[in-house]
């Protein structure tokens, strides 16, 4: 709605009455405006929603009120380039598409200047502007189609269908008894417990802390049953950390592991350097 009203009010400001044709290309706020500012040379520019080089070209053709089938290519090319300069001055990013079109325009312009080769094939005798004109017409057709779609959509937005009917799909009815409710409540409680367990797991001790713990236990008791040590682990992960810390301390020769009988309890003791070397000697045997 806003777009439309803007365009409506902007049109009279154009001064020169727009032709019927110029109205056909108007889709929402598609028309950019250049209005001379009083008697100064300054131009006021309102850039509309137009974005492509074809749009710009069409706009210039309408602005100059020239026949699309007989475009004064030199004039339009100059206008086009002037517009590109303006856009650059205004720090608008000039997309590559615009520059490509500029090149094409200049090419057509130069071909227009050359005398036609009388011996050329019929195909080459075609107006150098033909391809451009066809593209412009094709483009404008789709602009008109877009306008048609726009008005259709506007009408369609004024049409309402009924609100959604409640069905099992969008609103499954609740048919439960007291016991169902109890069961659900228990499930919720159970879930709550799990959550608490998870919180404890997050506070698990690190590898360094576990090593310290083992070291302290061995130091204070002289000898620690590994089963007791592992038994203190509260979770699987903690157990793994505990196991790794045993391996680590053994590797660093801080403790040694002693098993008095096969399948017996494994005891961790402070390792004396001698013992450590003995042990490694034993293992190599």
């Amino acid at each position, binding site marked *: 709605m806003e777009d439309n009203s803007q365009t409506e009010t902007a049109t009279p400001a154009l001064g020169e009455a727009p032709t019927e044709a110029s109205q056909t290309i108007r889709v929402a706020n598609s028309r950019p405006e250049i209005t001379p500012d009083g008697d100064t040379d300054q131009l006021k520019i309102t850039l509309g929603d137009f974005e492509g080089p074809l749009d710009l070209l069409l706009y210039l053709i309408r602005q100059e009120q020239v026949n*699309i089938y007989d475009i004064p290519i030199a004039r339009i090319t100059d206008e086009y380039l002037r517009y590109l300069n303006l856009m650059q001055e205004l720090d608008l990013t000039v997309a590559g598409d615009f520059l490509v079109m500029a090149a094409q325009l200049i090419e057509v312009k130069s071909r227009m200047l050359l005398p036609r080769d009388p011996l050329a094939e019929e195909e080459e005798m075609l107006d150098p502007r033909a391809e451009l004109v066809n593209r412009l017409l094709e483009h404008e057709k789709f602009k008109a189609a*877009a*306008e*048609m779609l726009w008005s259709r959509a506007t009408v369609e937005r004024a*049409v309402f269908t009924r609100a959604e009917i409640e069905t099992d799909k969008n609103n499954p009815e609740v048919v439960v008894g007291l016991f169902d409710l109890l069961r659900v409540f228990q499930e919720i409680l159970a879930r709550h417990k799990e959550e608490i367990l998870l919180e404890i797991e997050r506070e698990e001790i690190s590898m360094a802390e576990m090593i310290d713990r083992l070291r302290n236990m061995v130091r204070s008791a002289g000898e620690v049953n590994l089963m007791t040590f592992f038994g203190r682990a509260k979770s699987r992960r903690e157990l793994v950390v505990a196991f790794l810390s045993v391996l680590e301390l053994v590797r660093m020769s801080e403790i040694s592991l002693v098993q008095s009988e096969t399948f017996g309890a494994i005891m961790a003791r402070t390792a004396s350097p001698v013992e450590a070397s003995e042990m490694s000697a034993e293992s190599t045997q």
Partner: protein
Amino acid sequence: MSKAAKATNVEAQSEVELQSSPGDEIEGHREIGDAELKAIAEAMIFVADEPVSARTIADVIKVDREIIDKVLADLVTEYDSRNSGLQLREIAAGWQIATRPEHHEQIRAYLKSRPSAKLSLASLETLAVIAYKQPVTVPEILEIRGVQSPSAIKTLLDKRLIIAKGRKETVGRPMMYGTSKEFLIQFGLKDLTELPSIEDFQDLAGGGE
């Protein structure tokens, strides 16, 4: 006056029903009178979430498709003749009951709804190209619009107005796009053939001078 007209209408229908009901059974089903058929079809269209096809209605009621077509045509006239606030209309290959656009202001005021966001010009143009040239690839759209339209394509896909229609067997195997059922619904079209021919826009475009 319209009430009276309706009353005579109903009478006439019940007469027809009485005349045709004895012995006129189809495939062992109880024959349903035209008036009842009309009522059932109308009710089905009313409860349907999206446009419901005459074929579906015919299958559910177990009568010939042609009969349903006629019943629906009658219903449309009925709605129109009594200046109903509702219209029965064909859209996206199905039937739908909807309000009339004339009353949109009051309906909107009641629903407290605002007109939904419009498509940008770029999106509309891209949509127009896709609607008329489908299935069409992005480079082909670029050729006509003279400008890249990646965001427009994305918007249209997001709004489910267009859908991917496989890849074109050419260099780079670009994705082809076409319009969706949602497109028909949002633009109030029965089917794609209802779109005015693109050549009709020629006069508008060419008649510049």
